[in-house]
């Protein structure tokens, strides 16, 4: 189950953080997302020289914490998407697929002329769309 998704701006400022848990662990998830930024930076600054990973937006598993797996994705505008999940066996393809759809939703949200770049995304449509994507995570592979 996805417990948290986040959009983080290129100055590491949070643009959108949404947790999908019932428990009151927003602070914890904020910490996890915040922490994972170091790993993103590291990945970005020391890319593996091998061919296919070059210019790859999907950053893969950032780090496994005790209970969570954190995945990252970097857009060409240096905006980071972070996914925190409790699933222990996640298929890479699922995550890629998730990020692709998430990216599309994000692009639509920031294309809104009323959105101020660099400010938090407050669009309700975006939030709805994200929760739909989150709910359908992993289902596509099952079908």
């Amino acid at each position, binding site marked *: 189950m996805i417990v948290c998704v986040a959009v983080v701006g290129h100055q*590491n*400022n*949070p643009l959108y953080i949404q947790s999908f848990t019932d428990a009151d662990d*927003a*602070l914890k998830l*904020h*910490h996890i997302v*915040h*922490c*994972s*930024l*170091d790993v993103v*930076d*590291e990945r970005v*600054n020391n890319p593996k020289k091998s061919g296919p990973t070059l210019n790859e937006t999907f950053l893969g598993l950032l780090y496994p914490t005790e209970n969570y797996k954190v995945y990252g994705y970097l857009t060409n505008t240096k905006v980071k998407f972070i996914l925190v999940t409790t699933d222990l066996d996640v298929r890479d393809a699922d995550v890629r697929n998730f990020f692709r759809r998430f990216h599309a939703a994000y692009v639509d949200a920031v294309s809104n002329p009323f959105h101020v770049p660099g400010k*938090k995304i407050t669009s309700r449509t975006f939030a709805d769309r994200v929760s739909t994507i989150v709910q359908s995570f992993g289902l596509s592979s099952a079908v």
Partner: protein
Amino acid sequence: MVDPANTPLGKMLLEEITPVVMVLCTPLVEESCLKNGLSFVQMLSPFCDFTNIDVPVRTAIDQPYRLHKFKFRLFYASDIWQPNLEVAKERLKQVITKAGEDDFPEISSDLPQVNDLLSRHESEILPTWFQFFNKELVRTLSFSDHEAFDHPVACLLVVSSRDEEPINRFLDLFNTNKLPSLLNDGAMDPKILKHYLLVHDNQDGASEKATKLLTKMRSTFGPNDCRLLCINSSQDGQTRHKDTPWATFRYDALATEHLGHFLKLDDLNEIKNLMQELSSKHIIPYMEQKIRLLNQQVSSTRKGFRNQFKNLWWRKGKEDALDTTNGPVYTCSSIESQIRVLGDYAFMLRDYELAVSSYRLISTDYKLDKAWKRYAGVQEMIGLTYFMLDQSRKEAEYCMEIAFNTYLKLGSPVQQNATRCGFWWIEMLKTRNQIKEAATVYFRICGEDLLHSAVMLEQASFCYLLSKPPMLHKYGFHLVLSGDHYKKCDQIKHAIRTYRNAVSVYRGTTWNLIKDRVHFHIGQWYASLGMYDVAVTHMLEILASSHQSKTSQELFLRDFLHIVQKTGKMFEVLKLQLPVINISTLKVIFEDHRTYASPAAASIKEGVWCSLEEDMIPSLSAKSNWLDVQSKRIPRKYKESNICVAGEAIIVDIEFKNPLQIPISILSVSLICELSANPEELNSEANSSNVEPQNDEYKTSTSTGDINSSLVLSEVDFSLEGGETILVQLTVTPRVEGILTIVGVKWKLSSSVVGLHNFESNSVNKRIAKGRKAKHSPSADLKFVVIKSLPRLQGFIPSLPEKTYAGELRYLVLELNNQSKFPVKNLKMKISNPRFLNAGNQSYLNVEFPACLEKKLNVEQSGGHGNAKKMLQNVFHFPEDISVQEETSLSWPLWFHAAVPGHVSLYITVYYELENVSSIMKFRTLRMHYNLQVLPSLDVSFELSPCPSRLEEFLLRMDVVNKTSSECFQIHQLSSVGQQWDFSLLQPVDSILPSQSLFAGQALSCFFMLKYHRKSSTSEDSNPLFLQSDVRFGPPGNSEALFDVCSSPLADFHGYERLYQGMSCQGNVDFVFITQLRRGNIDSGAPHRPLLFSHHVCHCR
């Protein structure tokens, strides 16, 4: 690569993994030493570290080398026990607590800055107590039975010369019952090197007796193993040691300089010699010899193919037999133990090659025996030995990892061992600049013990900070984790310290959820320590956190107020964010020569008034501003700053917003003002008595009731619902002359929190400033020169309707009041929209309306002349003899006509001159502003068509539509104004509209015959516009008077209508259609008096 021995790990190993010398001494020896404030071991310990010796050693295979540095450790026999886990923990806790006290940041110190941290050297950032703590932690693991380097190599037996029968005492000392368990339970060889020392206290007398004893000892124990040590040579105890060698042994640093005050330099030298001899002549050779011996044994039993094979076979065989958790028990005589001793001795004598080969040899044995603890210990040593050899780094780390994991697997009994192993591993990684990996190891050695984990996490956080590039997010995260752990162990001071460091990461970011938590906890913790002031500063950071949930906001606010209450004092907080002040809404309204009748008037753009007053204010034709013309003597200061008048309020409008979701109540909102004496007046009339004394400066708080004070400030209380915004009007009234500065605004959040907000003058949106005043400094914006009290007119129009129907004609009265003692004169008035409002003649005051408009039979037409002229000039001059006297009022008639439907703004300016009251201000203006809404009433239109039969006759059709929704108009009369026209109804009114009432929505058309009628030459002289002919609607015999459309108000308004409806030209005809509305309930006017409506239609042709 630096020499491994010079790295931090190398140094640590050379310090910690050194031979142990067991000390057994009599109480009298201790007594002598304690005179110096030191125990015997403490006294000797500083001299056990040799950095400048030269001892030749041979390896097991006769390779000579030299030892230049050597160290051994001294322990009392009673201390050679592995400390109890609980005791060890307690000891570590004390270390941590103490460090917390020492390292606690000063209240005044600023929060650390990340950039500042990064620019500093590692050693400056890392808390110094880490190293100390780590050392302590390693020491709690000493004297384990699975390692040999802590097993005593030698034994130092010490007897005082005062002791009875010293020789026997020596024998008694090495009493096996009192020896450490290590020696007794067979874990180590009890046959160790013994050295006999006789201590003589020089204070007890000369040393002859001692020397005799020494000879006796030599004959008993052998000549080489006995020594005499004389101490306490100083009789007076005044010896001071500059660099006390014992300083490092006393952590409290208390009275270190008194340590050893009976020890003269000779004594110290003697001790030094003793220790050096002990090490180079006894310990090292003994170890060397032992290594040789062991090596031979090992070679004969284990080296070579045959032995190995045999060993393997033998181990296989006993595999099932022993299966305890710690594997088999090895006694000192077992070959395994001997190999381990060989390795450790070799390590201590820096024969690392031999050490590593021994360790490797034994590690497989332990593995096969499933003696995991020993296995881990050996792996650990292999790793360290590789490190010291500076070779096969990968292998070294791999060994450390194996050791670490093996220890971890064994669980809590060897948790501490895992920790120590982790430390060494971390140090190894740090040496190799793999700081990030070191951090993960720190993270892994966090056990179940919270306090222990807290320290480890904090150390891990520093690793992230120091890694290149720094990983600040993780730094912050680990600090927060560590702080939480500290908090759980009641190490509040440590918790605060770590959180304070964490602030540096989160400050300036928008990770508000985290940031708020950090500040909140710091605040809470400071409060729990009773440091409320600091607590408050942290709580302030989160007070206005609008993004938090309602419960969090409530919690934050409650805790904040609670803490503030505990401080027991008033808190003045600059830029308190609760509520938020919207500085862009700040509006200052003040009155200099321009005064306003209502706040609405003050909010009108200055330009509107300027253009209105243009030709009324004296000599404004020049491009200078009003001040220049008023007086050349006015000092520059007055020109550059705003002027206000004593006794008149300055109004400041400002918006407050509650950023929270919970309601807050704000008390005593008032301005902060300073009123200082005018500096120029101070210079010119320094002795004058009316100069304010200096102490009236900074008169910030003045209650409203205090009449005697020089400033009167208004106070406002209000409460704000969640997210609510409120516009508050505050006033300040200076009572004396001087310079008034509005500094800011203050309010009370609770009984003890005062919020302050200073206005930055450049952000002030000052509405009243004149455009020409461009050059003045921004600081002058909120600075006012207060001048002497002046008369100020107040004016209002009592019954001006807010809502009316088009066409209504009303009689109004303008009331002007003068509250001051001084009269004003030369009144002038200008009205922006004469089509709607007109000044009447004084004679109309107190007349009956609308009766006064009725046509009188003997009316003289000349009145029209005067009116026509008056219309041309815009300014209405009051008669010159009129002046508004002290505390009197002046009423003046006004005529109002709602000319067209729509929203109308009326601007009225009254100019008046002051009589020699002030040199600075000679006149003032009163500005009045009214907004009214005019609703459509009747739509009147005319159509004129030439009569086909007659040349000079026209057929006139009038269409009237009642556009109101409910009103019923009584049609009254139609009058034509203009040239000589006669007109009459074509059919009687009764037939068209019997009731003469035009109901809502009703339309009426009626026809007239219009006849042109050439006038005589005599009538040419009179104004053609004001000749009229009327048709009265109504039942025949109606005695109601017709209204005179050619006299004052109607004629004036008609003239304006002509102007507005198009240029006047001859040959046209104008009509005035007059109706009445009997129901007077549009406004709250008198119900019985009908409202009069006149509709003017001009130029109908």
